[in-house]
Each structure stands twice: as structure tokens, then as C-alpha cells.
């Protein structure tokens, strides 16, 4: 089933997706927001540029974007997958509580902000390129992985990562020396058992985007976790 998104607004697109039982191709998207919001049990492929809050509250559906995605992808998503073959805008995985987001390219600012976890609900974000500033801001749970596979000119992540982080784990495929972390987190080289935790996600990434998982896993990884003996105090007011 194919939906031509031209001249359709977000409500019309979502109504048509709901009418489809399983897989659907949305062709020629241009900025329509909230696509597939709250949906489960569908396989949705999108060409063009979907608008903000793609897959918000997603509850099990699989969304594949062939190009770039805009801001707030997977806002508060609960289950399912969002796969982006290009880059992703700001605040990806905002308050995400389950499911996974795979981005081949780069992520904007604040990826994984307010991510959380509960028992077996552990959300995962895998970014193939680099991520902007404030990565994992107020992260409370889940796993954020940045692989830095493409560009070498800019640093793997921007400034102020893990600001307010108090749960979950972050993995950066790099040495930690160049990056300034806040005092309330601990950054250390990843050990074998740490890497076991991300292996299946890297395999999935490689399967989706045709990269060499073994080669990726050979790189140096830094793992960042909150230091509970020294909790987060404040960022915005002092400056």
C-alpha cells in the first residue's frame, strides 16, 4: 500500500495509515508532523522529509525514513523502532521509555534528553555519526550509543554531554580525553562486559545500514554512567 503525502495534512496521513493492516509506503512527505503517532503493529516506510514528532508515543510500529528526519523523533515512544537513513534533528528520543532509534548519520542537539527505563523497558538510541551538544541531557535510563563512523573533522559529540544525567548508560566510540564531562558522571574505557551490553544493538545497526559490526566493535569505547555519590546540581542558573 502506498500513500502519496503531497497535499495531505498529518491527520489525513495518519488516518490512511490506520486503515492499512501491515506495511505502507508514504511517498513525498514534506513536513507533516506526528506521523504514526501512538501506532503499533505496522511497518511504515517514508520518503521525503517527515515533520517534527515523527513516531511520537510510538507503541510497537516500525518506521523507516529513507532521508533525514526533523526534531523530536520518537518523543515519549514506548515500543517499536524508528530507523533513519539520513540525519536526525534536535531532541531525538525525547523522554523515550522503550523501543529503539537507529540513525545512520548524525543527531542534532539533545538526543536522548530525559530518556528513562523501567524493569525490562530499556530504550536504545544508536547514532552512526556524531551527536550535537547536550547529548543525554537529564538521562534517567536507557542506552545511548554514538559510533562516529563518518565525519572526522568535528568531535564525536558537542559540548555539555550528560548534563543532569542520573541514570542509564552512554557509549561513545572514542577516547574520552577530548571531552569535558560534568562532575556528576563517571567516564571510563568500556570493558568486555560493558561491550556485551551493546553488541546486539551494533549488530542490528550494521544489518540495517550495511556496515561491518566486527570492525565497529574493535574500536575504543568510552562508557559514561552517573556517579550517584555526587548527584547533579544545576546548569542553567549559574551562567
Amino acid at each position, binding site marked *: 500500500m502506498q500513500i502519496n503525502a503531497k497535499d495531505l495534512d498529518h491527520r489525513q496521513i495518519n488516518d490512511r495509515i490506520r486503515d492499512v493492516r501491515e506495511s505502507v509506503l508514504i511517498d513525498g512527505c514534506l513536513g507533516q508532523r506526528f506521523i504514526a503517532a501512538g501506532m503499533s503493529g505496522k511497518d511504515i516506510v517514508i520518503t521525503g522529509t517527515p515533520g517534527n514528532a515523527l513516531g511520537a508515543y510510538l507503541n510497537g510500529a516500525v518506521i523507516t525514513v529513507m532521508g*533525514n528526519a526533523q526534531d523530536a523523533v520518537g518523543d515519549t515512544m514506548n515500543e517499536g523502532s524508528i530507523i533513519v537513513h539520513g540525519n536526525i*534533528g*534536535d531532541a531525538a528520543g525525547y523522554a523515550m521509555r522503550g523501543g529503539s532509534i537507529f540513525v545512520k548519520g548524525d543527531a542534532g542537539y539533545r538526543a536522548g534528553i530525559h530518556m528513562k527505563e523501567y524493569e525490562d523497558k530499556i530504550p536504545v538510541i544508536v547514532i552512526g555519526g556524531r551527536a550535537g551538544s*547536550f547529548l543525554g541531557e537529564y538521562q534517567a535510563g536507557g542506552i545511548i550509543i554514538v559510533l562516529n563512523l563518518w565525519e572526522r573533522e568535528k568531535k564525536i559529540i558537542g559540548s555539555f554531554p550528560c548534563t543532569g544525567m542520573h541514570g542509564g548508560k552512554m557509549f561513545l566510540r572514542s577516547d574520552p580525553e577530548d571531552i569535558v564531562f560534568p562532575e556528576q558522571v563517571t567516564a571510563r574505557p568500556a570493558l568486555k562486559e560493558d561491550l556485551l551490553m551493546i553488541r546486539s544493538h551494533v549488530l542490528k545497526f550494521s544489518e540495517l545500514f550495511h556496515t561491518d559490526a566486527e570492525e565497529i566493535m574493535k574500536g575504543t569505547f568510552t562508557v559514561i554512567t552517573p556517579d550517584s555519590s555526587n548527584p547533579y546540581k544545576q546548569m*542553567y542558573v549559574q551562567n
Partner: protein
Amino acid sequence: MYKECQIRIPSGCAIAAVISRKGEKMPGNLIKEAMVPMHERSNGLGGGFAGYGIYPEYRDFYAFHLFYIDRSIRKDCETFLKEHFEIIKAEVIPTRKIPSITNEPEIWRYFLSPLTFMLKSLQLDEKEFVARAVMHINTGMNGAYVFSSGKNMGTFKAVGYPEDVGDFYRLEEYEGYAWTAHGRYPTNTPGWWGGAHPFTLLDYSVVHNGEISSYDANRRFIEMFGYKCTLMTDTEVITYILDHLLRVQGLTLREAASVIAAPFWSTIEREKDISLREKYTYLRMLFPSLLITGPFSIILGFTGGLMALNDRLKLRSMVIGEKDDRVFIASEEAAIRKMEPDVRNVRAPEGGEPVIIKVENGAY
């Protein structure tokens, strides 16, 4: 009808721009179309555009665009204009009646040349003279409002959705080498025609998405230099700050950007280039009251170029793309792809990183 500053409504916006590096002309409907995919970022309470290079036949004259609430205030204002300027041409700005734009004021356009003897007797340079005239009208003549005052550029704004505002002003009939656009979602003040963006002074125009939290601190400082913030909207104060830093203080665009979106002290401390570190420190010490805090993404238009800038925390989105000699800027990539489906090099600048695009070799 409420004007700005008579009521405060506590409560996002859309911005877009395009420029030709070769100075080639593009019709106004190109930028109007860019606002369509971002419709939901506005709420119908304000839309507007600025076009650069649109008045080539009057390029040597200040193009004033004015709103008047009635004929009598227009007569008073025209008397003032005649006392200070040679009026080369005065006309009603052509508009198109459309159901979605109503309650329009009288909308006039004047091409003006300051009277030489006035300049001499006041010992003012031409631009300062013009800026003072704008301030005089906007603060002293109730019911008259200058919403555009640069040379070979013009602003067009109204209450309505930006696409409709573009139709209303027949934007397709103008051609410019650069355009900016704004769709408004007013958060603090009711939508009034004067309160729509772009905000302008001389050839500077600003479109802004965000809500600055330093408004009052900024306003108190800038009003010491003769600017009067009449509309209680944060974009107006940004416009005056940029005019003050660029025209009056003579800062470069980059310097002005590092005043209003100053790097954090912690970032300055880590700067490896000593001269840059000293410069940032100097500018922060010199202009502490012009630091703009809170979320903003702005596009500044000026003769021959554009500058895009995010707040240093990047609390608003902004995307840039290129194709051939054209550079596109917008709150959302979809807006850029509406203008140019085959856009290349799409990227999001860092918070506080100014992106400056100029027409090459002064070809405007």
C-alpha cells in the same frame, strides 16, 4: 482592537530565508511557498517578509513603509516627513483583497531623501538622522508606525498566516536577491500588524523564533542610546541591539553575534586561541547587558547578506542548505525542500555559531 503592549498573553514561530550569492533575483513567492509546510508553527496572528534588492529603480532613497490607523494621522505624519525629507514618491502599497486578511490599516510607501540642510544643522550622519525620524514617528505619533526604513529593501507584514500575508501583499510581483520570512505564534502580546515580524530599522531586519528571557535587561540598556521599544516584543529589542552594535559601535557581524549569544565562561576558558579568548572576554565584559538569554533562532537581513544565529544553548531549531549559488535557512528542513527539493549540504549550525552569507563582489 488591542495594540501590542495593552495586554500580555502568556503562551513557537517559523522562520525561513533564501539568498543568492551571485545576487540574482528571486520572486517573492519562492519564500512564501517555504512557509506552507511550517503552517502549524504559526497561529494566524502574524506573518511577514523582508525582500532585499526589490526597489532597484529607487535604490538611492530610503523606502519607508507605514501603517496608519486613519487619514488624519497620515496627514500629520506626512507633514513631518515633508519637513525632514524630500519625498521622491508616495503611494499606497498595492494589496490584494483576500478573505483571510481583514482589518487592514492604511498602508503607504514613501521613497525619501533626507534634506541636506537638516543634516547639516543637526550635525548627524544620514543613517542616524533617518533612525531618529523612525523613532520619532513610532513613539510620538500615535496611530502611525514605520515598519520598514531601509534602502532598496522592504518589509511586508500583517496579521494572518504568512502564506496569506504573501498573497495579500502580492509578493510575487517583487524580485529580490535575498528574502526572509516569519510566521508568528505570539506568546506574550496580541497579534497586531506592527507586531508581526520582520522588525526593521534602516536596512536591518530581524525575524525571530523564540522567547528571550533577558528582554527587560536588554531593553533598559538599549533605551539609554535613544532607542524606544514601543511594542513590548522581544524581537524589536534584538533589532535595536544589532543596529547599535553593528552601525553605531561598528562591530563586525561575528563580534555582534558573540555579544548577544556570548560563549559560556567555561567555554571561553577552554578556548585554545588566546586572541579569541581575550576577545570573547572583552566583549562579554563590555556588553554584559546585551547578552540575550532564553531561546532564539534569528535571521538578520542587511544590505548584501544574511546572518543566521541560534541562542548558545540552541533551544530552537534551525537548518541550512545550499544549491548552486543559493543558500536556504529555515526552522525546518521541509521548508527548505519546498524551495529546493534537491538541496545539498543540509546542516544545523551549533548554538551561538553565526552563519553569515554575503552576496559575492557586491553584486546586489
